[in-house]
């Protein structure tokens, strides 16, 4: 009988010992995965989840001696960090209907040994920048090349969210529409994009009218009024000086600044 009581007390104590357990929260317990993401500064902003999916790059503002330029994308891992460098794998995916970039001609091949050294998540890190080295080929003076890169699984990483497995860079050596010149910016500030208008803006203001410049204008109404006023006045002057032959864009449409 005493033994029974002892067992009962022992069992009760055992149950009491294990009754409480700290809530471990929602933990990721899957294998290591990898995916692209927004810049680390806006990583926790849900509205920015798909920022930087497509980037535009142009050589047009760079000195002619410059033959290559680098675009960076942010990449993130899921799962435990590692105390060793971990490589990840990229490959090009052709975009139907686009002038797809050619490895070695328009960009340094993703499997180039020099590039492979850079496609690494450093030890102790869960984030890295992915460099894509663009090459200034003559063909870019007349065309915009598209390079779509996609992640593939390797020995270190499985794939992350399906919609975050790719990035695209559209680059050229001719004027191209800055990504900051959005549809909204067209409606509100600058009007329809055309390379002719873009070149005209650059020429009369001696400003780049690239993403940084346009974002600065959108953020400061007074600055925007100044530069748009300069453009507007120059366009009126140009059209007055060319009676019957006003400035038209590459599509044959009249260049208009709202």
């Amino acid at each position, binding site marked *: 009988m005493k033994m*029974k*009581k002892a067992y009962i007390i022992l*069992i009760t104590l055992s*149950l*009491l010992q294990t009754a409480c357990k700290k809530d471990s929260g929602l933990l990721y317990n899957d294998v290591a995965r990898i995916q692209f993401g927004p810049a680390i500064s806006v990583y926790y902003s849900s509205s920015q989840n798909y920022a930087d999916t497509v980037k535009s790059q142009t050589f047009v503002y760079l000195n002619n001696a410059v033959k290559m330029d680098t675009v960076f994308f942010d990449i993130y891992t899921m799962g435990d960090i590692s105390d060793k460098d971990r490589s990840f794998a990229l490959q090009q995916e052709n975009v139907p209907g686009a002038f797809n970039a050619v490895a070695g001609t328009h960009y340094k091949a993703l499997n180039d040994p020099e590039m492979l050294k850079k496609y690494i998540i450093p030890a102790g890190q869960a984030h890295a920048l992915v460099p894509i080295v663009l090459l200034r080929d003559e063909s870019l003076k007349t065309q915009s090349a598209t390079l779509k890169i996609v992640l593939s699984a390797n020995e270190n990483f499985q794939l992350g969210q399906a919609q975050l497995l790719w990035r695209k860079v559209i680059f050229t050596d001719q004027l191209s529409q800055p990504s900051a010149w959005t549809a909204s910016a067209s409606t509100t500030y600058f009007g329809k994009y055309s390379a002719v208008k873009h070149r005209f803006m650059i020429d009369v203001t001696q400003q780049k009218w690239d993403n940084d410049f346009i974002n600065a204008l959108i953020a400061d109404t*007074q600055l925007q*009024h*100044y530069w748009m*006023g300069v453009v507007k006045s120059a366009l009126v002057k140009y059209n007055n000086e060319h009676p019957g032959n006003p400035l038209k864009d590459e599509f044959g449409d009249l260049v208009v600044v709202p």
Partner: protein
Amino acid sequence: MKLLYKLLLLVAVFQFFSCKKDTTTISYAEKEVISVKGMDDIYPINIGQKLNIDPQVTSNKDADFDYVWGIYETNVQGYTPVLDTIGHSKQLDYTIIQPAKDWFLVLKVTNKKTGFSDYFTSTVRIGTEYTRGWYVIKDENNMTDMDFFLTPQSITPTTIRENVYSLINGRKLDGNAVMLRFFTDYKAPIAGTTTYANTRSLFLMSEKDAAVVNLSTLKDIRNFNSMFYGVPAVKHPTMVGNDFLVYFMVNDGQLHSIIGQGPSTGIFGGRKINTTLDLPYYLSKYHIMFISSYFFDELSSSFYSATDRSLYLSTIKDNPATQLPANNNNKKLIYMGTKTTAPLAGFAIFQDKTDPASKILASVSPNVNSFRMTYETLSPTDKVYNGSNYALLFTDENMMYFSVGNEVWSRNLSNKFEQLQYTVPAGETITFIRHRKATGTGAEAAYAYNYVMIGTKSGGNYKIRMFTKTSGNLAADPVFTLEGKGSATDAVYVGPSITTNMIYPSTY
């Protein structure tokens, strides 16, 4: 028995999870009230002075108090004010270092025995020598400067500080004086940051130059070369003012703006464009401005409006009942000013471009979509016909003041009655007439005023006589006279009671 033990075991286990400490508290005791005496509503104080407050704090409960004093700024746009902790004892002994303006002082009292806290607030009205007094813009030898008259006791000044602008900034403005404006929320950069803060400031304008200074220090915030995106090729400012939403400046007849309500850098944008054809325009210095703003183009004889958001001047549509079209009316604007704010209305004197002998006095009810003007034709025998230095009594009697030679006349705008109000002494030339007023209560009651200001010059000196009025008619003698060297064109009183840009009308 086995079953009993098993049941006991189960009960013991369930009991382990069944009890939870009840942390709710329901008290029917009397609510604690902490009282503070010895804190004033307002503490006027200058930068560098000590703020000493020793309040008496009591509670209806057994108490052992903990104290925290904090201060945070008012009139903030574009960023969140931060509470700075400035004391942890009952007696506050703090040296003021904050910029001159109104701040909120907060005392948090916590009864450590009960955990109950309460907050008590006051306004700390931080100033410098320069934050209260009369400012006069004047010129000598075609160079503009500013005199400052201290008003330590009341609106009547006691002491003059001559040429304070050049004394502090080491330069005068080029050209003769034009106007002086006081702003409460001009955006000035905070030193060492990228933040721009509402700043009480004075805008000085001469025929060829301009500067905006911080009222606390009178140091330049910006000069003409730094107050525009793209410095205009011609330096010829003629007006600066603001409505509820926008700061405007006319330079060389071209209109520039800054967002008034909201984040900005305090830098004027490029000139406004006249339609998509960029038609030429040249705006008069005269304007009507309060809840919205209206300008007159001297080239086309047309009115325009404008906002800070649009690059373009806004064209005006006539009210069907207007007697004078707002566009292409072939008139030259001799004078225009703001008379009332609700509804926004003004008066203007026009001269016909084809027949310069034809002058009219128009009542102006501005509206972008329904602009209405009615007018009376002036006779050469009307004193106002040959007047100059016009001024409207802003929101007071329906009268206009003006000068004819060395005489100051009034015209009743309702019944056309004209009356000689004052004759300046022989040898003096009238340089400007303005009506300004401000209210004040409590400690500021001594600074309330309502004056018609008559500026004159004689030799190398100016006088600005400050007249009260009764039913629109000037008192026989001025309340006081500001006197200094040079020729004055404007005078503005600035003090803590002038809390918004809208107290003084933006008008000539």
